[in-house]
């Protein structure tokens, strides 16, 4: 089994490892202890104490908070249960005019705002741009990745988490509530 030091993994994920070394890691057999070293590196970097269960995206982590599992930004902002699409708790800015699009897509390079939403999702805590969606107008926010954390820890890592959660998309429970609020107004 291949093995790399924590420093090598750190430099690799930061894009700092010399290309020849990175290339060798890409081509070679993978290191089975990668995940643990990866978590250690990331845990050392965040300013909060909750245990990282899974890195979800740049700036975003699924963490264990008391008996809950939540999506959390490295700035500390909490998005709620990880089974709910975190985008529903983010700030959104939609580039839906030619002028707004031209700031990013120069001249003829832009999509047609009548057909395409360019949606930017920001962390309400720190203003990090967490995701950009380009979708047909009207398409629901995409729940990019809903990890099956319990299956991962139990079956793949062989160390089940203490409290298991049902593998279920909870996003629609929130939108149902919003819909009921809209109707009651």
């Amino acid at each position, binding site marked *: 089994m291949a093995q790399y030091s924590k420093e090598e993994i750190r430099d690799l994920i930061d894009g700092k490892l010399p290309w020849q070394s990175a290339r060798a890691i890409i081509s070679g057999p993978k290191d089975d202890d990668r995940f643990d070293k990866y978590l250690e590196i990331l845990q050392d970097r965040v300013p909060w104490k909750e245990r990282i269960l899974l890195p979800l995206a740049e700036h975003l982590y699924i963490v264990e908070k008391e008996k809950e599992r939540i999506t959390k930004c490295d700035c500390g902002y909490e998005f709620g249960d990880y089974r709910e699409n975190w985008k529903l708790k983010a700030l959104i800015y939609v580039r839906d005019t030619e002028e707004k699009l031209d700031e990013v*897509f120069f001249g003829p390079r832009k999509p047609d705002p009548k057909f395409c939403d360019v949606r930017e999702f920001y962390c309400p805590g720190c203003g990090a741009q967490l995701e950009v969606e380009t979708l047909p107008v009207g398409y629901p926010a995409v729940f990019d990745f809903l990890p099956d954390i319990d299956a991962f820890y139990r079956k793949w890592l062989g160390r089940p988490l203490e409290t298991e959660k049902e593998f279920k998309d909870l996003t629609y429970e929130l939108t149902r509530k919003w819909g009921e609020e809209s109707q009651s107004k």
Partner: protein
Amino acid sequence: MAEVKQGIGEGGKTLKQMLEETARITEETGCYGGIIELKSKEGDPIKYELLHSRILSALIAGRETTRMIAASPIVREVQELCISLYTPEGHCVATSTGIQVHIVPMGEVIKWMIRNDYEEDPGIHEGDLFCCNDNTIAGMHPADVYDITPIFYEDELVGWVATVIMEMDIGSVSCGPMPSTCNVERFTDGFFACAEKTGANDMLRRDFLIRAERTLRYPAMFLLDRKGALAANIKVREEVKRLIDEFGLDYYKRATGELIEDSRRTQLHRMRQRTVPGRLRNPQYLEIYLKNMPVPAYARKDAIRLIPVDIEIKPSGEIAIDFEGAGDWGWHSLNTTPTGMYGGLSITLAMTIAYDGKANYGTLMPCEIKCPYDSIVNPSTMYLPTANLWAPVLTFGANFLDSLSRAYYARGFREEILLGVNQVSTVLNGLRRRGDPRIHAMGEFTPGGDPRQIGGIGSGARGIADGIDLTMFNPETDSGNMEVFELGLSALFVGGRVMPDSGGFGKYRGGFNLCSTQIIYGVEWAIAETMATHSVNRILQNRGIFGGYPGNVFYAYVVRNANTKELIEQRLPLPKVEGDPRNPDIKRLVNDDITLVKLWWCSDEILEDYDIIQNCMHSNNGGFGDPIDRDTSLIQSDLDLGFTTLEACRNIYCAEATYDERKEEWTIDEQKTKELRGMRRKERLERGVPFKKWWQETREKIMKKEMDPLLLEMYHSSMDKGPRFGQEFREFWSLPQDFTFGGE
């Protein structure tokens, strides 16, 4: 008592019996062919690896043989071919480098022949050759032609070798290998060989050659490709026989089965080792613009089709892909097939997670694809064109890479992240003035006409670095000589350059794309049109990740009645590159009739010598991460190379830079950059609205159906394609259960 006819398979079985038995025992045991223990591998691993290496070497040598015989630059230089070895049942054992998308479809053609009793009629014998490019049997588009040869050892069929070659022309209504706008039903697709016996005794049939000569625009290319494929197949077949002589028939059969089972287990292991189980989503869309195209009335309409992509990485490591909600099929060339989607998955896996040269049928075994019947991914009629069934496949492949990248990221294997792209181009159709009057100009494979020829498109970003600039679809492909292309085709390549800021912005940006300019020359007439596989029109596919932006939409400039000849005579500058996209060189330097092509397009007037086509080959190659997290040394490097503009540096990356004319280099002001980035975060917090507020406003618009009719029709087409998409759409927007986008 009736005579029981012996089959040509193992122990006198028919191939059909073997196919059914292998399927049954695989289903019962969960292992390919019931191989539970890898006895050959574990008993003598060196011998086992040696057999695989010899097979692989024979396949790659066969591929090289074809290249030496063929005349087509697509084969000789671009290397759009691939050779695979199959079991008697049509399961891929090993495949050469090249267009590995065909691992599955070539095997499906073999299975189709078996199921259709080819063993009885037309018969399968030593020295036979079968040809297929009918994608309703299996395949990726009619220009990909399969030549398939059985391998006999002492009167027993022990396998098949199949070669796929992409043709320069397949005689369709629009010429070129990926014809676009005019193919609206099956009978516009051109030349068909429907798993046809085209040779015996290792010779091509003369009547088949005559048919090709009289129905294709480039018959010489086609026929030399067939001869190249035949030579390659014979070479591999004879090497397989030598291997059996050397290793023994029983060992060969056992070990080739183990190679498949081994790859199945490897695929599962790698998924469990490198990813995280769960559900990944990324929808794709296809835009079809035929309303103003020269096609029959029944096809003359615009449509947008949605294909939701739901990928599940199961706790077993298996992959389940579901396209439920894919919209209706239609009379255009962008419908695909389940086999096509498996093809897309096979090349995506073979070039990423199954990269070790052992990708085969086993790699695909733990992958399930569900294509709803009677939809654009699984039409209920065979009478559609298949010219571009690649289009949804390419988009799916890119989506799959994007989604898999999220799972790699979660597990810590960021170095495996590679974001997908879309393919873009224009094609040129016409009549040459020089040479053979039957030969037409075909721009897809003119320099710059197709991104693969000169590495015209950049990859999406990687997880530890920027995307690869000017990469190609097949990694081992060579771009080919411009001069060789110019010999056969009627356009002169006059310039090409990286387009600054053409990769999606991000912490790591997409690789850069090329702007390529051609002057039409040597034609009686020419017609240009867009390639229908370019699926970035009005709507950008969702290609950025973790805060990175997607790339850009493809466009081209076409200049009719251009004054290029005068410019050349007066030695004035030609518009070789795009320049500033808001004030392009072509508009400054050339007179007359300039068309900016963005959607599907076909010139309604002929193009003549000295007219210009300039392709800006934006491939929508997305960025990774928030652009304001980009390392300033990368920004400086791009500035120094002219790959990014000061506008992008300041406004997108929020970095302040100054140019030292004496040193001819840029310097980043780190302190100012830090301030600019802090200000950008504040701006975002001010302009961003809570998602709930946006949701409420958008919901109102959806309730009132306030969107373009094409989008309303797109959603309507998908809402009843299986229960999930419609239900989830209604639940997300909290719409009444009976809400539809119909016109009632």
